[in-house]
């Protein structure tokens, strides 16, 4: 294959991914004077970010003037079970308000308080009502505003263009290589710096809130390029996904339902969350229903309802209730806002949830309780980055948004992703532009391009016997069954063995048809990243012998203070995954005190 035939473009900075993180990064890089391209697998405006519902967390202090970055920082660290990179959590809490206000400067219209400021709603793990929102379609507002802002900045956009390989030269980033979905033709980008903003990999699980794009491409590409991953065992299962009918199983039900007053009950009508308050959160959590209900209106004299404990706690509780036979007919629990709020309130605050249930499940949530259960939702783990610039461990590579790791530790709080995208998207864009300005363009290695091209076309050789759709279904079964919410050594071993076999079988995938917009072929290629990411997840999960945040081991049920001091690091060396543990960055004493201080008891 001759490289003459390959379409080539050269930039200072390419941003891979056009969700919130990628758009914000591209805007920043371009503003810094870098010649910038934005590349995405779907059409512009369709990334995961568009689906985000509940809101953006930022200590604006509009609803509770007591709120400030320190409280937000504390909530984030505690929610992450202290595994967070403290500096990322600090920068995030400090800068999120400016990033939200900046969206307003660009035309965003958040819901308002009665005195005309941005309204904030309650969400799990947040001490105060903190989420700026637009009903339950906050992500749509955010992506559209960023998209419209970017369009006027002269950023070149490559849509429906899937990148497959990062190119390196002497260990530094030289560009990236991929294909146009429409034509199947190859495309090569020469770049001084690459920002990965490709999101997570939840499509490897069967019950998931994630779209087809979430195949972990960015994580796999970064790994292949030699970068470190951390915390790959930390996968968030959101407690409230739809469970019925089967075709919508896993579809997200926003935490905003509980933030706006919805409660969880089992089939005995009991508000079971009061039985699952962990010691770590006891001082911050309401003791009884009266206090929990009063908290919505009066946060000074009452503590948070346990329905809004961090997601890992709620997901585990639901899992236990269902296993104990106290679940609903379709294997979930009830989420009831109908008996708590007026139909007008529900339709105004949660219009898209109302529509989603009405249209897809024939359920009217203003009169009937929803049936919900956990769904695979978010990767806390991913590419290891340096907090100030979002630089990965390979020079020239940057990462922001869900693909990056550290910010959320062992568990992400709701609303902290959208703010993360803005804070670190901006930092990554600036970091990449600065790096590009002080480095020369690297040479593209033809051998790397040719090897990638050959491997990408292999599924057309027609010698294999595997069907990509069937293989994907097997992968999803495996991850769902063996690397789910509750994990054990035996099951993880079994998962790893199965993934090794799937890894061999994926090389024998054959696809029909030609290269033009061929979903079978696209899936065949996506499967490779999904399997790589799944392996990193299962092996990291096996290594961490404790329970913490999104990672629960049935055979090590307690959090272990020693494990609380380290990250599990994954690297690829000589084609093999290598795992190790490394100490977390040391948190300054003053911030540690802030995190550990107990909240004041109600008067």
């Amino acid at each position: 294959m001759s490289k003459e035939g390959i379409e080539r473009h050269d930039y200072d900075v390419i941003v891979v991914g056009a969700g919130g993180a990628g758009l914000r990064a591209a805007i920043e890089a371009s503003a810094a004077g870098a010649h910038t391209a934005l590349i995405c697998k779907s059409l512009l405006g369709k990334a995961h970010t568009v689906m985000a519902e509940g809101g953006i967390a930022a200590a604006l202090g509009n609803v509770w003037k007591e709120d400030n970055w320190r409280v937000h920082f504390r909530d984030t660290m505690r929610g992450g079970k202290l595994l967070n990179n403290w500096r990322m959590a600090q920068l995030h809490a400090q800068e999120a308000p400016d990033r939200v206000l900046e969206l307003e400067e660009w035309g965003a219209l958040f819901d308002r308080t009665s005195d005309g400021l941005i309204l904030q709603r309650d969400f799990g793990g947040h001490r105060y009502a903190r989420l700026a929102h637009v009903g339950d379609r906050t992500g749509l507002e955010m992506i559209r505003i960023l998209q419209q802002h970017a369009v006027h900045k002269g950023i070149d956009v490559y849509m429906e263009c899937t990148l497959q390989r990062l190119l390196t030269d002497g260990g530094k980033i030289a560009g990236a290589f991929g294909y146009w979905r429409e034509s199947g033709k190859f495309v090569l980008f020469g770049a001084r710096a690459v920002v990965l903003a490709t999101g997570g990999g939840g499509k490897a699980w069967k019950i998931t809130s994630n779209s087809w794009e979430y195949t972990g491409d960015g994580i796999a590409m970064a790994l292949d390029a030699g970068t470190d991953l951390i915390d790959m065992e930390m996968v968030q299962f959101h407690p409230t996904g739809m469970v019925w009918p089967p075709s919508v199983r896993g579809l997200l039900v926003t935490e905003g339902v509980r933030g706006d007053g919805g409660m969880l009950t089992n089939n005995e009508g009991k508000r079971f969350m009061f039985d699952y308050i962990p010691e770590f959160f006891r001082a911050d959590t309401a003791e009884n229903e009266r206090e929990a209900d009063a908290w919505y209106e009066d946060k000074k004299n009452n503590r948070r309802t346990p329905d809004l404990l961090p997601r890992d706690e709620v997901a585990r509780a639901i899992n236990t209730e269902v296993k104990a036979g106290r679940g609903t007919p379709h294997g979930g629990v009830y989420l009831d806002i109908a008996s708590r709020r007026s139909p007008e309130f529900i339709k105004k605050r949660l219009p898209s949830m109302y529509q989603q249930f009405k249209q897809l499940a024939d359920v009217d949530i203003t009169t009937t309780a929803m049936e919900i259960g956990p769904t695979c939702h978010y990767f806390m783990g991913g590419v290891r980055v340096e907090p100030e610039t979002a630089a990965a461990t390979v020079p020239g590579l940057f990462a922001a948004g869900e693909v990056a790791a550290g910010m959320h530790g062992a568990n992400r709080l709701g609303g902290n992703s959208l703010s993360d995208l803005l804070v670190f998207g901006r930092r990554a864009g600036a970091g990449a532009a600065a790096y590009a300005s002080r480095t020369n363009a690297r040479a593209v290695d033809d051998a790397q391009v040719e090897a990638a091209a050959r491997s990408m076309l292999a599924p057309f050789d027609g010698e294999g016997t595997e069907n990509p759709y069937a293989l994907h279904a097997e992968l999803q079964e495996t991850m769902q069954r063996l690397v789910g919410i509750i994990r054990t050594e035996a099951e993880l071993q079994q998962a790893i063995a199965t993934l090794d076999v799937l890894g061999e079988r994926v090389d024998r995938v054959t696809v029909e048809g030609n290269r033009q917009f061929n979903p079978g072929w696209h899936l065949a290629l996506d499967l490779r990243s999904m399997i790589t990411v799944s392996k990193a997840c299962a092996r990291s999960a096996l290594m961490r012998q404790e329970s913490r945040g999104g990672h629960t081991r049935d055979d090590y049920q307690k959090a272990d203070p020693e494990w609380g001091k380290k990250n599990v690091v994954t690297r690829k060396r000589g084609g093999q995954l290598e795992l190790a543990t490394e100490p977390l960055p040391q948190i300054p004493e003053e911030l540690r005190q802030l995190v550990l201080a107990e909240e004041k008891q109600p008067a």
Partner: protein
Amino acid sequence: MTDETRDATMSIWRGTKTGGRFETYTVPMVEGMVVLDVIHRIQALRAPDLAVRWNCKAGKCGSCSAEINGHARLLCMTRMNTFAPGEEITVSPMKTFPIIKDLVTDVSFNYEKAKEIPAFKPKPKEADGTRRMYQEDIDRVQEFHKCIECFLCQDTCHVIRDHEENKKAFAGPRFFVRLAALEMHPLDTNDRLELIRQKAGLGFCNITKCCTEVCPEDIHITDNAIIPLKERIVTEFYDPLAWVKRRVLSKGAQQPGPGEPEPPSAKA
């Protein structure tokens, strides 16, 4: 529950810009399925290279637009139980846009139109550094911001559906919604009336309301966006006083551009 045992039969347009035809597929169905689920099953079991766009599967991203039995719809929000057992179901790509393959069309027209719209330009902040806006003042614009860019309204609008030649000078209902959102934004100061009248071709719209009928977000495109824009143009352009004020006071106080109608005389 009767769904459990039913098979779904669907005719799907297969082909590229050089031609194609309907192919009929039958796959087993489970309860609650939407048309997109059936298409995914067809991909997995019968036609692995069948091209379709989708992302959220919940009516939030606007990727899966197509025509079901001739109606512009989201594949992910059309339940199979809305069809009578045995009813024929055909799925074809949006007609207004050039075909790429199967159900996937080239919607770049829309992205080009988006670029032509002058950006949001806010007025200065309040004295205390805040932006105060009241909920009742933004309700209408928030309605417009619900747009998921499915482009079903564009697909349906007769001005461009059967008239390729109109595409150059017509932005389409989606962008009338966008223009209205900007024009009614309490903070915006940019002036787009010229564009709305000329390049965006608002005058082509004869208020048939077909766009409103297909909008999956229930945006009242015609009543709330198009008609108020038309009214604004009438007052601004054909009310001489408003015209003079706009010319003299607005930042872009230039003479009418070439090919632009002269202002109506004060006597008219």
